[in-house]
């Protein structure tokens, strides 16, 4: 038997799919979210939890502006989800640091921020600090740090609670999340699309949004999209919980709300392999101690790998299928940072309202 009678079917129940579902439901649409298997490669369950602007779109103005837009929306988004679900997202717009142990990397990133500031104008503030200026501001920073940048727009959040709160909110608004419904293939149908599962009966939907993260790599070509999606591995570790609060948030070292110190930031193109490695764990630990030497005595209690969802140029794709405009693809590697935009402004684009933002720069036809 074929099922499915909602306005929109979203393939993918991670942070991106659920943010879009949340926004569509608030706009009065009925939504079904098809979520995959537990063992799927889920960026939403392994990411670092930053709400981050600095460096984003330094060389691609539309991405800098879109990220800034999302960052501006974060406080109200966190409050809204929290009010609706009672789940504390632990969102904090603390401002964030990038720390450098290499002068050339510091100089290159400083140039990136100057370019980003040129794009964003007065809306964007940042500081560069020499190692000594940083140590004067944050006594406890290690001698190996040669410089840092600080951006007051940055912050962090508990990413697992974002996922949980979105799941609760979507269901509270009447959205249906179907677990273990891994989409095997998609075909056009007289009334829209036929979505196939390996064993279950197919589902029909008039409007389809592909938000399947790395799962979109196989599904996107079935709708005629050109974007090639690839995984990029990041490895992370977290320490035992600490009584004191670290006096900073950085893109590689941050203290989560429960007290553990999360360390991450590695990048590796190794295909669909999310296993952590001893060599990367060693370099993460060394980096953390370079940043904050008193971390040397703290025990690591857990480590993991997770796969970023990368497009060829690293920027998001918001696109309608070339021959099938009722099918849309949404993919990015910053699903947390962009979540508030995906739950609001992007919905106007999805529904093609008169307020629809111009997202041509993110079309799939750039590949």
């Amino acid at each position, binding site marked *: 038997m074929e099922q499915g009678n909602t306005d929109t079917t979203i393939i993918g129940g991670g942070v991106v799919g659920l943010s879009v579902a949340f926004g569509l439901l608030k706009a009065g649409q009925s939504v079904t979210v098809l979520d995959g298997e537990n063992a799927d490669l889920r960026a939403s369950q392994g990411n670092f939890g930053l709400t981050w602007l600095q460096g984003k779109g330094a060389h691609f103005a539309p991405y800098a502006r879109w990220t800034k837009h999302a960052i501006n929306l974060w406080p109200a988004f966190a409050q809204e989800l929290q009010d609706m679900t009672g789940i504390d997202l632990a969102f904090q717009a603390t401002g964030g640091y990038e720390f450098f142990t290499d002068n050339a990397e510091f100089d290159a990133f400083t140039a990136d921020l100057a370019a980003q500031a040129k794009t964003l104008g007065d809306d964007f503030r940042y500081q560069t600090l020499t190692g000594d200026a940083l140590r004067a501001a944050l006594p406890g920073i290690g001698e190996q740090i040669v410089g840092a940048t600080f951006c007051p727009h940055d912050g962090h959040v508990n990413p697992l609670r974002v996922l949980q709160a979105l799941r609760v909110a979507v269901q509270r608004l009447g959205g249906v999340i179907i677990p273990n419904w891994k989409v095997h293939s998609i075909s056009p149908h007289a009334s829209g699309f036929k979505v196939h599962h390996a064993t279950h009966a197919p589902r029909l939907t008039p409007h389809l949004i592909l938000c399947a993260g790395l799962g979109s790599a196989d599904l996107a070509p079935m709708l005629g999209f050109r974007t090639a999606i690839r995984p990029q591995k990041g490895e992370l570790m977290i320490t*035992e*919980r*600490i*009584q*004191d609060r*670290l006096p900073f948030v950085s893109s590689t070292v941050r203290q989560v709300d*429960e*007290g553990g110190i999360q360390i991450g930031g590695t990048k590796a193109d190794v295909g669909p392999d999310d296993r952590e490695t001893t060599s990367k764990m060693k370099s993460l630990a060394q980096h953390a101690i370079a940043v904050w030497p*008193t*971390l040397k*005595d*703290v*025990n690591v209690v857990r480590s993991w790998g997770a796969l970023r969802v990368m497009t060829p140029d690293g920027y998001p794709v918001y696109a309608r299928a070339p021959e099938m405009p009722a099918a849309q693809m949404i993919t990015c590697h910053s699903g947390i940072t962009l979540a508030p935009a995906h739950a609001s402004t992007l919905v106007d684009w999805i529904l093609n309202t008169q307020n629809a933002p111009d997202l041509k720069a993110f079309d799939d036809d750039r590949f």
Partner: protein
Amino acid sequence: MMTDSRFFRRENGTYDTVCLQIDGVQTHARATDTVAAALLAFGPAPTRTTGISQSPRTPFCMMGACFDCLVTIDGRPNQQACMITVQDGMCITHQAGFRPLEEPHDG
């Protein structure tokens, strides 16, 4: 040795003993004891409080799984008492909540 522990030693055979300090009190334990066994034999008081709810804990699973036995040993916090054998002169202290970032380094 305090006598209000809920645990009683079986008086079978003879054992070497070591001297310990538990929360400032001089005591002794069998040389083969884990720190957790020595703590349970010493008395019924909680050996740590949890970080979130300040709930009292004593050693429980005795096999490295539950982490209820975390104590500070010779100035080093978050040590699993059930996985460490007592040493002569060891200084064991109650741990209140999560560990501090920096170890006191006072031995």
